[in-house]
Each structure stands twice: as C-alpha cells, then as structure tokens.
C-alpha cells in the first residue's frame, strides 16, 4: 500500500514512507531538526517555526514538523537562512521570557550561538505566579505559548476546555474565563497540561514547594491534595 518516497536532505538521499514529515525523514538519517512546540501527543500547529528548513523551489522556509516528504524534494536543514531564523527566534525568546526551567532551549541557544542579551531594552512578559489550586502552579513568565496545554485540555485529549488565550500578539497569554482561579473553572486537575509543558510554566505544586525550600514533611502537612499513603 504505502509507496516509498526518495528525497535529498542536506545532500544525502533518504527513502521514506509516503506521508512522512520532513522532521521524521531527517531523523531517519540521524539529522536532528530542533523543535519547541512539537509534541507527539498533540496536533502539530507549526507555530514555533524553529524547525523550519529550506526546500528548493519554495520561496519561504518550511516547517519540518508538518511538511510531508515529496519525491525529489531537496531539503537543507542548516542553510544560512535557516540558521538566521532559528538564532533570531531563540534570541527573541530569551528576551521575552524566563527560560531558566527550559534546559533544552538553553542548549539549543548554545548550539546556534544565540545570545540571550541580543535585544537590550526589550519588553519582557512578566507575570505573577498563579498559585490557586492544590495540584499545580502556573508561572506564565516562563510560558512560551506552545499551545500544548490548551490543546490537551481541549480536543487533543481531555475535552475539559478550562483554559484558552487572553489578549493577542505579543500580549497573548494562557488564561481562564474572566481570569477565574483554576478551582472555579471546569478544570478536573487531570495534570495533562503539566505533563506537556516544556518550560516549567506549569509545575506540580509539590515540585514547586520543594524548590521553595520546603521539606517533604512540611508539604504533606499542607494537604496539597496528595493523600499520604497508608502504611
């Protein structure tokens, strides 16, 4: 049934099944294309654009996470344009948000020679930590808007629809209906949003408290929704 497609990635020929994305095709020959918003479990929206590659004959760079391999395609994963776009996106991210809990992105920055201080005097997205429920803490200063939490809360997994977006453009932020606290929303505390968050913007309450210097015993006393196992 499935036909194989042969294409060239960085001068190297590769044969893949029809329907394979460029991201997967590159992985097959051991070429890593960086990703941020991409997650196996969520719908790919191709919005971080860090995975862009140069495809011969295309005016614009193409997101490897969704563009499918086609016969005789010629792909460059590290051309000058690609490198400039990736580096600039990373530098803009660093000037926008707190990446301290996103080691994968910090590593990426080193790899691409992206400088965190590239944009001086840039307005940052800084928000107070929202600690309003027993299960997780929301620190949107660390949010890079990958959309995964909104997706798993909605039709990618849980169908809970507790969160959506506030504002738009640079001012976009994850939010609830009229900024209500999590217990006041339809949230069922399933924790899937926390699981898919790449930057520590959503963090289990316990982890958060441990980081704040509290001991496991102190935390247990707080009754954070976690029941102590019976001995």
């Amino acid at each position, binding site marked *: 049934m499935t036909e194989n497609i042969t294409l060239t990635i960085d001068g190297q020929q590769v044969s893949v099944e029809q329907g394979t994305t460029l991201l997967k095709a590159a992985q097959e020959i051991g070429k890593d294309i960086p990703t941020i918003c991409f997650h196996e479990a969520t719908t790919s929206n191709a919005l971080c654009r860090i995975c862009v590659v140069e495809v011969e004959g295309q005016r614009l760079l193409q997101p490897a996470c969704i563009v499918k391999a086609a016969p005789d395609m010629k792909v460059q994963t590290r051309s000058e344009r690609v490198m400039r776009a990736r580096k600039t996106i990373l530098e803009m991210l660093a000037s926008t948000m707190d990446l301290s809990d996103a080691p994968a992105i910090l590593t990426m920055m080193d790899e691409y020679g992206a400088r965190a201080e590239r944009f001086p005097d840039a307005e940052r997205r800084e928000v107070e930590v929202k600690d309003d429920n027993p299960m997780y803490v929301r620190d949107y200063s660390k949010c890079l808007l990958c959309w995964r939490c909104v997706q798993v809360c909605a039709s990618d997994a849980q169908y809970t629809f507790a969160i959506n977006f506030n504002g738009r453009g640079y001012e976009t932020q994850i939010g*609830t209906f009229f900024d209500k606290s999590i217990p006041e929303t339809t949230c069922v505390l399933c924790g899937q949003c926390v699981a898919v968050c790449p930057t520590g913007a959503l963090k289990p309450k316990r982890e958060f408290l441990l980081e704040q210097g509290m001991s496991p015993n102190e935390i247990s006393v707080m009754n954070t929704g976690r029941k102590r196992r019976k001995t």
Partner: protein
Amino acid sequence: MSDTDTSPSLSASLATLHSAIEQYIPLGRSGLLPALHAAQKIYGWLSEPVAAEVAKSLHVPLADVHGVIEFYTLFYNKPVGKRIIRVCTDQACALKDADGVLHHLCSHHGIEPGQTTRDGTLTIEASPCLGLCEQAPAALVDDQAETNINLKNDSYGLGRPRSIVGGSLRLLTANCGSGTTSLEKYGEYAALKKARGMKREDVINEVKASGLVGRGGAAFPTGIKWEGTAKAEGNPKYVICNADESEPGTFKDRVLLLDDPHRVIEGMAIAGYAIDSHKGYIYLRGEYPYIVPALENALSEARQAGYLNEDFDIEIRLGAGAYICGEETALFESIEGKRGFPRVKPPFPTTFGVFGKPTIINNVETLCNVPLIISQGSAVYRQIGTEKSPGPKLFCVSGDVAKPGLYEVAFGVTLRDLIVMAGGMANGQSMQAVLFGGAAGAFATSVHLDVKLTFEDLRAAGLPLGSGVVMVFDETHDMRDVLKRLGHFFAHESCGKCYPCQMGTQRQMEILNRIAAGNMIEGDLQRLQDVGWTMMDASLCGLGQTAASAVLSAIKLWPEMFEVRKSKSLKVVNAKKKVVAKAKVVKAKAKTKSVKKKTSKAVKSKKKSAKSKSKAVNSKVIKSKSKPKKTVARKSAKRK
C-alpha cells in the same frame, strides 16, 4: 455601570439577551461573533454573566468565549462609555495631525486615550486604520464615520462617509460617487442571467480566460481558484467575499460596498452558480458598521427580485476589529466563531475552507470584475489594461496629494499619471516618498514615478501592488515617524500564533521607536534586519511575512536613517520638536473652551477643509525624474 449589570435585575435583563441571540443559537459556535455583537449592542460591553449566558446558549466552552472576546479589539469585557470615539492614528490620518485630534478630544474630556469619562458617557480610543484615508483625519463615532476633522474651524462630516471617485475609467466605479445604488438603478443582474444560461465550467473558463487575478493583495488567478473549488470533493461549497479591508491606506472596498452593493452581490451569485454553491458570506470588517444597512437592504432587494433564493443566498458576517481576519484562513476561523488565528496551508481553501469545506474566497474588487467579464466576455475585458495585467484597477490615493480619493484606471498608467489625476502634490511641496501597497507594501520615491502600474512592471521595480494603496508623503514628513507607526500597527495586529511574528513585530516596533526618538543603540540596524528577514522567511502567514516589508525597503532607500551616529545627532532636533508639540497642545487647550461638543449628534457643517490648496501639480516633482535619494532623506531629517 458594572453595578447595574450584575444586580438582581440581571435575570430580567438576560431575557432581553435571549431574544436578541435566539436567531444565532441554531448556528452553534459559528453564531458566536454575531451573538456577542448582539449582546454588546444591548449592554455596551460583555460582562461575565452575559458572556456566560452566550456560552450556555450556543454551547461553547466558557474559556473559549472569553478567548474570543479577548482576541477582537471591538469586544469589551470591561465597562466602556455609552459612546465610543475611535480616532484613527494610522498613517494617512497621521499626516493630517490625527495625534492632535486625539489629544484635543481627550484633553477636552479630561481623559487619556483608552479611558472612559467618569460619568461613563464617553470612551476615546486610538484606532488602527479605519479605511477613511482619503478624508483624513477621521474617526468612528459609534457606528458613524467622522471625516475631515478640522480643529481650526471645528468642522467635520458625520454619518455615511462620502465617496470621492475619479480616474480615467468608470467600470467598477460606474455607480459610485452618488449614494447607494438601488436595484432599480443598477438594473437587472444581466451577467448573472447570462451565466445561468451557460454551463458552469464555461463560466469558470470565461473567468480564467479574462486573466483576472485577486485584488486583495495576493494576486492569485481567480479562475484557477474557482476551478479548484468546483473540482474539489466535499459538500456544501461556499463563496466568501472578503470585505475585511483593513490594510492601512485601503478604502476601495468601502466605496464599492457602500455605493454599489449589487455589483458585489451579482459577482458572488455568479461564483455561486459556477461552483454549485448554495451559501455565500460577506465578511465585513467591524470598523464599517455603517455599511451594514446598505448591504442588508441590497440583499433583500436581490431576494425580492429572485436573484438570491434557496439555490444561493448570502449572509453578512461582521468582524470585530482584527486585521488578521483579512487573511483568508483566519477569516474562516472567525466565521466559525473562533479567534482569528490563521491556519497552516496547505490544505488550501479550495479544498479545505470554511467549516472544512471547499471554498471560494475573493476580495470585493475581484468580485466586482466578474459581472463585467461575463456580460461582455473575456476577450473584450482583456482589451483593458496590458496583456499580463488585464482589466481595470482601483487605486486608493491618500496622503499629500491635492485630491485624495479612489481612482479607477486601466493597468499600465504610470505612478506619475495617477498622482497627476489626484491633483498632484498638495501645498506646493515636493514628493519625498510613496508607500505602495499598504503597510505590508514598500516605499517608492520619485525615481519610480514612471513605473507602469502593472503586476509585471511593479514586480520588476520591486514594488508590490498589494491592495492598491498609493500613500504619498511630501518632504515635510519625518519618515522615521512613518516607520514607527507601521511598527506599531503590526505589533498591535499580530495574532500571536507563530513566534517570528508574535515576538518579531514587538521587537521591530521597539527598535523603530528608538530610531524615531533618535535613541538608536549600536547594532539596531542588524537587529532590525535579522528580525525582518526572520519574519519574512519563517512566519506562518502573510501578515508576518510582510510585516517588515516596508521597513526593509526603507533601509535600502535611506540607509543613513538607520545609522546610529546620525540618529543620535538628531536628538537635539527632536528636543526642538517636542517643544513645538507642547506648544501645539497648549494652543489646543486654549481652544477647547470655544469648541462646542465635538460629539454632538447633529451633523454639523460638513465643509471640508479643502481650502483649495494649490491645485497646480507640483511640476517640479512630477517632472523631475530622479532626485538623489540621499538628499531627499537628509533634507527631511534636517527639516524636522
């Protein structure tokens, strides 16, 4: 205000809401924007209980409803004044002292832009382009257009905006310039009648043969679009008229829809027949509320005459303040009741459009060409214009020309011709630059005056035709201020979905602000270019891909404007400017007392400020072909 809305009388008042949104309930989520508009009409803003009730009625999750309200700037989830004045501060109006108008109004009422008066009667906001550029400075007072605002003699027009139409052709604009054309005056839909007597594929072939390409900016061949939609699998199929005209400097669709709605409707009906569609939408930008009654009336005339019926009918959808919704896939999302996020393409609208169904989406002007093509045949149509750019074209001429307005010409006239048609330069000044194609366009200078206005010639000159914007700047303007406003526009209008545009438009704005203020930092030019190229190369949709287009063209034309040294030396000059600006404010304040209520309903003397300023074409500029670019820019810098 909020007190009354959350009081016990709420349940009684929610009954009013129910009857107002009842008709949208069968639409489900797709009814969300119309329902929110209806609710806001009752309460003035969208409070939590009102939003919750809308959500419940339409079965849309609460968080999603909130997300939608937050996305569109014309929806408010905080109390606003009973009356809202939105003063356009985009480019064409800025040239006519829109900032002065805004500050004057605000200081008169003792508030800052974006604030509401204490008594809750009035909110004043700065607004992106309102599509009234040829009658600048302009504002939107609730549902009425306020045009040619003149602080000196306290005159302005209020209500339905006038249409100023000219040019060497009157085909698309045949019925424009003297009020809304009734069906009686428009006459029978002869082209539709003819089309319905033809085979569907023949109608498509005729449009293909005409060489018509989209007039919204992307210039995609219309016939190919239709053919793709006709052949696509999936039913029903839709026809959408993209009337979300929001490109700064563009106002052609406003004139066409307001003055000659039947031409658009006939074009849509022909498209509907060609692809066997039964449903059309006109997605009208929220800043054109005064067009709705004219359009609704025309639709009902067309229904009564039997042109629209159960085989094909059209629904109006009103946007709510989002430039991005002019992007076709974002427009679909908006019709579906969602935030206007553009989708990744492919799939393209021809196969996966609104509601995931095959969809034709065409710009207003494009559709207005269709009756012309069908009635006279593509061969006759092709005699207009050039071989590669056939047909008539509308240009929105604004800025420092003597007679700004909508000009219809055949493709192939030169930029100089067009400016001459528009009365030449105003006030005897020389031309410094032309913003071509809108905010997403590029700058031209006097060296481009003899470029022919065709797709092929413009492409060769590196200028985009875009939506037909020709915004003219004389030498007295500081182009850095122009760039600053462009930067602000895109930062305000980015949807926030893809990273290059979401953060790039913000960083671009910050750097352009520094340049305009004379505070450039070492490396800003490189930053600006890296951000610009990254947006152009890697953004998800056309907004991000063109958000740096004008800036990058300015860097090429006026490199010295982006030099740190020069920009710093301008600081002194800028300090002077501030003093002048302050003096202006003082003057304005002094005037306030004598000025009566600016917002009074009465339509005051509509005398436009046209002091018949030197109509004479500035022969110096129009004739002199090449002015060394550098001197032009330097001169402007010095003047400031």
